[in-house]
Structure formats: structure tokens, C-alpha cells
């Protein structure tokens, strides 16, 4: 035996209104969340970093040397 129940137009109208409320609420939630994301973004900042390698020590002059010692010639008979 098949039981056939008819849904009244009034019920459909109520359900449609519920759909409207759900969709509107969902949309509002999404937009609200996106607004929060925007507000928590880091502020715009410009980073200017100057790195200067400067070596103050300059050596434009250096000296070297050459040396020797001349010893007396040993006298004859000395070792």
C-alpha cells in the first residue's frame, strides 16, 4: 500500500525562507572571515638595508731587506 502525503505550499515556502537565511548567513560568514584576514595582514613596510664593506687599513708601502755578514778571512794555519 502506497501512502502518498502531500506537502503543503506553506511548508515549501517556509523551507525556501530557511534556504534564503542559510545562504545569506553563509555568505556573511565568509565575507566576515575574509575581512578578518585582511585586517591581520602585516603592515606595508619598506626595508632599506645598507651593507657597506669598508676596510680602513691600507698599506701602500712595505719594506724588505737583504743582508749578509762578511767575516774576516782566517789567517793562514787557522782552521
Amino acid at each position, binding site marked *: 500500500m502506497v501512502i502518498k502525503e502531500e506537502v503543503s505550499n506553506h511548508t515549501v515556502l517556509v523551507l525556501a525562507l530557511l534556504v534564503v537565511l542559510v*545562504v545569506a548567513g553563509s555568505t556573511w560568514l565568509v565575507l566576515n572571515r*575574509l575581512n578578518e584576514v585582511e585586517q591581520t595582514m602585516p603592515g606595508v613596510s*619598506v626595508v632599506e638595508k645598507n651593507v657597506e664593506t669598508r676596510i680602513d687599513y691600507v698599506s701602500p708601502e712595505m*719594506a*724588505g731587506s*737583504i743582508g749578509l755578514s762578511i767575516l774576516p778571512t782566517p789567517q793562514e794555519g787557522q782552521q
Partner: protein
Amino acid sequence: MNVQKTLVIVLLITMSLSLLGTYSSLQRISGLKSLTGAWENGTTTRGSVNLTISQLVNINFTQDRVNFGAGFVTPGLAACQLETNTANPSCGWTYTTPRSALTLENQGNANVKLNLSNLNYSQSFIGGTNPGYAWSWNDPENDALQNTCARAAPVNVINEDTFVNISATNEVLNSSSQICSMFNASDSNDVINISFRLLIPSDAVAETGKFDTWTATVVAV
């Protein structure tokens, strides 16, 4: 019929809101460039790094001393010749390993003009009859390229590996003696050796601690 018409209107509103919400969400999300938080909506963030490398003029005698040690001319010989990078001549000096030449290196990052000067000449340094005091230079690194020491006028014409005697009448080295018009700073071509050849006559006066000082002076090219 009236209820059905209202139902259609409500559903149309529902679809419109849904589409509007979707469109709005897409617009907002597309404004996000990436998950790094960077925006591309006209407020582009830019960072910059400036780097300045200063010019450095710096030379160094990495081998700053040539010491032939002590000795005397073997009796019976007229003179004894000592030379850097050469074995002991067995004429009266006792060193066993060859004496290294002076080594001058451009350790800066700038090509420079190189001047050399010294204090003595053969007679004042060694003394005796016909003493010899000669020097030469060469570039041991990549010698074939000849990039270490450019020699444009008014550089003294002193050829590489050619000994030049420093006598009273031939004072090659003085404060204005420019050896290289450009002494290279490149690590592969920045070394000059300064070699010496001494001729000690048998009548040179005995004296300990004889020395001569060589000074290298550079200015940036």
C-alpha cells in the same frame, strides 16, 4: 498560484544571493597574491640591499728578508758570487739551501702603480774592489700571460729576469723608479719576485750585519 509565484520569487532571490556571495568571495580571494601575505593591489612592498666594496690598496712582502748569512771569500779566489734561488757557490758562504728572493704580493683589490727604491748601491753595500750588487724581477704566476706587471712609459725599461747592477753611476732605483705601470690585483697574477746577485770581492771589508732595505710604494691606478 499566488503561493507558487511567491515561491519562485524567493528561489530567485536565493540564487541571486548565492551568486553574489560567490562573486564577492572570489573577488576578495583573488586580491591575495599568495599565502605570504603580500598584496599586489598597488601597495607593493619593496626591499633593497646596497653593497659597497671599498677600494683597497694593500701590498705585502710575503717573503721580506733575504739573508745570505755569514762567510768570507775563500782564500785564493778573487770574489764570491751569491745569488738568490741558486745553490751555495762553495766559495766561502755556509748556507746549504738556496736563499729565496723577496716576494711582493698585491693583496688589495685595486691595480696599482709600483715603485721600488733601495738605500745602497754596490760600493756602499759591499765595498772592496769591483763589487757587484744586481737585482732582477720576475712574475712567477702565469708567466706566459705577462699580466702581472704592465710596463708602459714612463716605466724604467728593466726587462724581466734581467739582472741590473746597482752602482754609483747607475742608480736605477730611486724614489721615482716606477717598475710597473699596473701591478695586477688578480689573485692569479699578483706576485713579483725580486732576486739578487752579489759579487763579494776578496778585499771587501769584514763587517757583520750588512743590509740594504728595499721599499715598495704603490698608488692606485
